[in-house]
């Protein structure tokens, strides 16, 4: 029997029971639709997390002081203050895999401008800070090397702080008082949004690290050194070079532990991606359960159909249909059901994802992979769940089938 004829007669058989065929397909439609929508949501989440992580700047390494071992007591990162400005300049000079270095200090406190005040954190940075974090000043200008050398009382406001302290006027050129030290506002940063942990990155004031060290935190030690590698692939090299340099500078014996910690963005990114990846797999596997249930629905209906059409099978066999002709016929019917369901499900899933993006403002990404996957899945389900009923039909004895009432 020619394939085209089999497919045509399969469509005819399914048309005979329109309602039943539709309800059977509904299982596959919902399953495939759900898989596509869930994958789209999961991948959308993954993408936005990656976006947020890269908002911290690419190729970034952070050197923290501390984790020093005193006898048997090991302290956490940042507990010991051993990182100095000279360390930072040495990293800049002697590590070829390092592009920019920004020594970091941190303070916090209430900031007053006119009759408004706002509690925020004050980040002391070097001149290359914006390069490293791929950030920019929206208006005004960033402080210069000169300001840093002079420990000038100048600052840059984050967007959130600028909005809180200067709701109606431009902050540039005005003065703010940080813990009673007056600072001149040089500029306002562009909006950066939340970071991967959900913290507002714009709720910050930047000032020369020298100013923060000398006028606010009154300490000679750095809280961190922000470093950017020359390229994403040189992050590892930069990490090794910095480690060797600092161990030498801090005179650490070969078998002693480092008195500093280096963290890089790719570690953080890998963790976050793994988390959202698990989310995607979880969502998709819940959705594929419904696909499986849809497949069982097909098997159920095909079994009913084989029983109902036993006489038809007998007639076909009596006029010369072989077992494999009957097998093909019922397999194709199951396949047509699951394929049609799959195609409608894909349309539904794509439509649903677009609707979710539009109404719930969730990022969704529909990949060709997820469409191919669900399409392949529905074919596999048609064959898998269609085979048993089809084989049952093919193995019928023609006489018994003909006599079946």
């Amino acid at each position, binding site marked *: *029997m020619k394939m085209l*004829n089999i497919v045509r007669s399969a469509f005819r058989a399914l048309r005979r029971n329109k309602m039943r065929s539709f309800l059977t397909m509904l299982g596959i439609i919902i399953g495939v639709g759900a898989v596509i929508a869930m994958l789209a949501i999961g991948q959308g989440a993954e993408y936005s997390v990656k976006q947020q992580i890269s908002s911290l700047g690419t190729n970034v390494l952070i050197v923290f002081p501390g984790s020093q071992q005193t006898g048997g007591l090991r302290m956490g990162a940042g507990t010991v203050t051993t990182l100095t400005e000279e360390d930072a300049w040495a990293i800049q000079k002697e590590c070829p895999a390092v592009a920019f270095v920004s020594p970091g200090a941190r303070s916090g406190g209430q900031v007053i401008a006119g009759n408004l005040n706002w509690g925020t954190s004050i980040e002391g940075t070097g001149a290359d800070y914006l390069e490293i974090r791929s950030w920019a000043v929206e208006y005004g200008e960033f402080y210069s090397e000169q300001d840093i050398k002079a420990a000038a009382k100048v600052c840059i406001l984050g967007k959130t702080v600028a909005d809180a302290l200067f709701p109606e006027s431009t902050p540039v050129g005005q003065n703010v008082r940080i813990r009673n030290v007056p600072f001149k506002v040089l500029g306002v940063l562009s909006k950066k949004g939340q970071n991967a942990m959900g913290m507002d990155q714009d709720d910050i004031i930047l000032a020369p690290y020298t100013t923060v060290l000398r006028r606010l935190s009154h300490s000679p030690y750095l809280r961190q050194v922000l470093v950017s590698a020359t390229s994403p692939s040189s992050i590892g090299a930069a990490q090794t070079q910095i480690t060797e340099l600092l161990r030498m500078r801090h005179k650490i014996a070969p078998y002693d532990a480092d008195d500093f910690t280096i963290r890089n963005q790719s570690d953080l990114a890998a963790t976050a991606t793994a988390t959202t990846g698990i989310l995607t797999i979880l969502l998709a596997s819940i959705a594929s359960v419904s696909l499986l249930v849809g497949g069982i629905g097909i098997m159920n209906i095909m079994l009913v159909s084989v029983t109902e059409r036993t*006489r038809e099978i007998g007639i076909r066999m009596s*006029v*010369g*249909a*072989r077992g494999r002709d009957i097998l093909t016929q019922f397999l194709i019917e199951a396949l047509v059901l699951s394929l049609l369901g799959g195609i409608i499900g894909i349309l539904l899933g794509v439509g649903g994802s677009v609707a979710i993006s539009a109404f719930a403002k969730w990022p969704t990404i529909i990949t060709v992979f997820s469409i191919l996957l669900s399409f392949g899945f529905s074919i596999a389900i048609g064959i898998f769940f269609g085979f048993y009923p089809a084989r049952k039909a093919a193995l019928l004895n*023609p006489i018994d089938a003909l006599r079946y009432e």
Partner: protein
Amino acid sequence: MTRQPATIPPGSNGVLIRIDHLTKVYPLGEVEVHALRGVSVEIRNGEFLAIMGASGSGKSTFMNILGCLDKPTKGSYLLGDIDVSKLSRDELAHIRNTKIGFVFQGFNLLSRTSAIENAELPLLYCTMSNKERKDRAVAALHRVGLGDRIHHFPNQLSGGQQQRVAIARALVNDPRIVLADEPTGNLDSRTSVEVMGIFQELNNHGITVILVTHEPDIAQFAKRHIVFRDGKIRSDKANTAPRIAADVLKEMPVIDDEEDAA
């Protein structure tokens, strides 16, 4: 799927079917049912044979084996020069497809399927172009007098017309043998005679017709009578003066309700 319609080479001295000591035993739980207990018979090309007998006599079992729907337990069945008793399921299907046409008591048409699609059914299982298949189905329907109803569905046709569609289906692959199992069982007497008329006409064109019936006046249209009892052939006689359907019809009162039924 290359299966060409084949013709049976006429066996020696025109013998089409040679059956030798055929037995069929059905296991039925603990006991065995002996449906056929050693049947031997020869059927020549172009015969019109009526197989008769009470129910349980083994005539239906014999018919099923003759039609390659079932296999004998013992004995041989030669169709032309093919030993059918040694064939596989698929090979039997091929024989049914190309050499045998079936007509059943209950018509056994596919419901919600037009006359032409029912008639072309056997041709779906051999290699043939769509056009040739349609042409042959239409020709077969014309041959049984249904040329004007090729797109009707079974529920739009009377019993006699449905049986004609079934006969057209049996004829569409040019078989050498037509097997009819109680073909008039569901029909009124006038329609029965009309259907017998079609079989007689097919027989006049050289097709071997084998008819199973328990109605003696239907058997009178055949040229040879075989009577089964208890799984054996009880009698095998020639019918020297068969009834001619065309003549019988002329004498019958016309009760024309076929058109209304349609």
